[in-house]
């Protein structure tokens, strides 16, 4: 019986003190509810981003040969923009793809306006679309080949 009394006393003590401790933690009263209380800053304000990766490029010159074989290259990108809402961010992006051939370097660059769509406001997955205002390729010879060309031109001029 004595154990039973002790258990009943402990239960009573717990039920009396639990609301007190809960009251101590409670921040009752009026207070401003910030957006961050409901949404821990998923997306807001300005943003800037750097990217790196790899990409495979192919082209079709409509010369009857179809699409060329894919060529892998390194990709670097930089972008910045604004948060329109929890479902949309917009910005500008510059991207550069580079492949080094033995005799020359092929580069493919773009400047785009992009939008990132988050289907779920509190989610982390996104899809992105962009429209490029400028797309340029450059196939440059290596410095050694350029120097040999320049020296050849200088030699021809000298002989003339």
């Amino acid at each position: 019986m004595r154990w039973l009394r002790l258990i009943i006393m402990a239960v009573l003590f717990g039920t009396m003190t639990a609301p007190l401790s809960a009251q101590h933690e409670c921040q009752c009263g009026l207070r401003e509810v910030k957006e961050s209380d409901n949404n821990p800053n998923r997306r807001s304000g300005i943003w800037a981003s750097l990217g790196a990766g790899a990409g495979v490029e192919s082209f079709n010159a409509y010369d009857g040969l179809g699409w060329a074989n894919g060529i892998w290259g390194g990709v670097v990108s930089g972008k910045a923009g604004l948060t329109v809402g929890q479902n949309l961010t917009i910005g500008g992006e510059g991207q550069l793809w580079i492949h080094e051939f033995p005799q020359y370097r092929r580069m493919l660059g773009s400047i785009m306006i992009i939008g990132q769509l988050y289907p779920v406001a509190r989610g982390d997955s996104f899809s992105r679309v962009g429209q490029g205002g400028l797309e340029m390729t450059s196939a440059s010879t290596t410095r050694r080949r350029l120097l040999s060309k320049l020296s050849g031109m200088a030699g021809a001029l000298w002989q003339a």
Partner: protein
Amino acid sequence: MSWPTLDVGVAYVVGAGWDIRMSRELVISPIVEWQHFTLAGDRTYHGKLLNVGLMITWSGHESDLDQLLSEE
């Protein structure tokens, strides 16, 4: 002399990714994107570029702006 060649055109890109939050302001995002472009130089051709990569993104917060403005 064929150096350099420069072709200019228009492009569009579509892609998908996933934000992995590292801290309050930093996010790392694996991304896959498909780019299609049409270039016009001494020849006209279409190209496509499939990219995979990682983005690291810093983002500001409106609450930071509020604090900055209230101090002033």
